[in-house]
């Protein structure tokens, strides 16, 4: 066995580029001893198959996931999050094959909630969608490397994204429970608030919602307007969608007595465009009488009918993150499939 110290770093990095096994950035060489430490940390057998990742169906064993996690720059402690994220994406509601092969501009987002976010220093505060945190950068990158190397979602080959997404390098964020006045994101699916969980969601890049005042109804009206633009894929495919409320906005909403279900209901009723306007988006894909997979209560032949951004209020997901002091929240359009949340089982 060759120890990591003995590896010629330059040769190893070059070989990873040559084989097409990187995302275009240099990787940490996956030496045998480094990978073994990652596998040992999980307490699992290295040959255990966690998932058969589409589109090619590569077997994501614990060891192969560890190889990709090492390459991404992870710490061994991050393995539980990476494994849980890949398991969650295999839920049929997520439609991983479609997510990874579509022409759209979404990419899987990994959201970590619960105590583990703080334990692993996963950022949910200032610059949480940006750079600067090892855990965010490398957990997200490990997932993306696995989806390409093991799933075979090769950009330009099986992955037909028209433009792609900067988040295809890495896209991982935490919910900041210290600033969240409501229950954690994972309690939406029945998990305990004290649990740690990963939520995966095919998301576009964050769309900023700037609002300087402190009127809850006005803020939500601004948010609703941001959500239902004519170019938003949501209006035509009706998947789940996310609103990430910043600390300042969350504070006055909570003080005004708004609960998450009230926010969802308001946005469901107000983030709407008329059938007449949506006709500018082209002819329906699918059943013409149902429009673009719109809810059954919408008559696609009535120009005056209003179409919501999702089929039902509970398809709008609310979480809290971001730095204090800024008048910003963000909207994350989805793609056409569902958010999936899975509890993290620690070794």
């Amino acid at each position: 066995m060759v120890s990591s110290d003995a590896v010629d770093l330059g040769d190893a990095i070059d070989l990873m580029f040559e084989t097409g096994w990187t995302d275009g950035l240099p990787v940490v060489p996956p030496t045998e001893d480094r990978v073994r430490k990652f596998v040992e940390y999980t307490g699992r057998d290295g040959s255990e198959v966690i998932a058969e990742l589409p589109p090619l169906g590569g077997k994501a064993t614990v060891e192969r996931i560890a190889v990709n996690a090492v390459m991404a720059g992870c710490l061994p402690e991050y393995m539980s999050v990476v494994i849980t994220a890949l398991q969650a994406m295999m839920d049929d509601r997520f439609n991983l094959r479609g997510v990874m092969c579509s022409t759209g501009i979404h990419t899987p987002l990994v959201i970590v909630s619960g105590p583990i976010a703080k334990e692993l220093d996963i950022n949910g505060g200032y610059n949480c969608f940006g750079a600067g945190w090892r855990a965010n950068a490398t957990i997200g990158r490990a997932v993306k490397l696995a989806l390409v190397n093991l799933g075979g979602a090769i950009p330009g080959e099986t992955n037909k994204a028209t433009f792609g997404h900067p988040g295809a390098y890495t896209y991982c964020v935490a919910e900041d429970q210290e600033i969240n006045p409501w229950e954690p994101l994972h309690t939406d699916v029945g998990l305990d608030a004290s649990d740690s969980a990963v939520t995966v969601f095919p998301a576009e890049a964050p769309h900023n919602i700037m609002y300087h005042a402190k009127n809850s109804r006005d803020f939500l009206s601004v948010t609703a307007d941001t959500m239902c633009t004519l170019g938003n894929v949501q209006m035509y495919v009706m998947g789940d969608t996310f609103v990430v409320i910043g600390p300042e906005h969350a504070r006055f909403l909570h003080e005004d007595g708004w609960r998450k279900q009230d926010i969802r209901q308001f946005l469901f009723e107000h983030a709407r465009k008329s059938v007449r306007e949506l006709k500018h988006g082209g002819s329906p894909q699918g059943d013409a009488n149902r429009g673009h997979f719109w809810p059954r209560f919408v008559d696609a032949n009535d120009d005056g009918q209003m179409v919501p951004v999702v089929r039902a209020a509970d398809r709008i997901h609310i979480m809290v993150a971001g730095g204090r002091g800024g008048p910003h929240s963000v909207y994350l359009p989805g793609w056409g499939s569902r958010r999936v949340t899975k509890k993290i089982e620690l070794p």
Partner: protein
Amino acid sequence: MVSVPGAELKTRLSDLGLLSPIDPEAYSRWRPALRLETIHGKVGGFLGNRKANASLLLEGVKELLNKDYELRDGIAVDKYVYSRPAADDIIDDLASRCDFVVTCIAD
């Protein structure tokens, strides 16, 4: 393009003490279908994804192939859901009735 470790690559990985991040079987399992010597007079399948532009494209391809190669038949079917793989019954039906199948993406 992702490389599947052959003998030479395996040696280089071994020399550097590195492990591969891929499942080589996944890449070797998927190969292009055997090519027919000719499609003249054959039965062609045209598998659409339920999107309007894909239907137009496939219909055009079908007309051209019919004109140039005098197909015995052209069978056009759509997947049930555009973002999902074609269901087994559709694949089985096309496989049993067609000599070749054309599919496309067109959004």
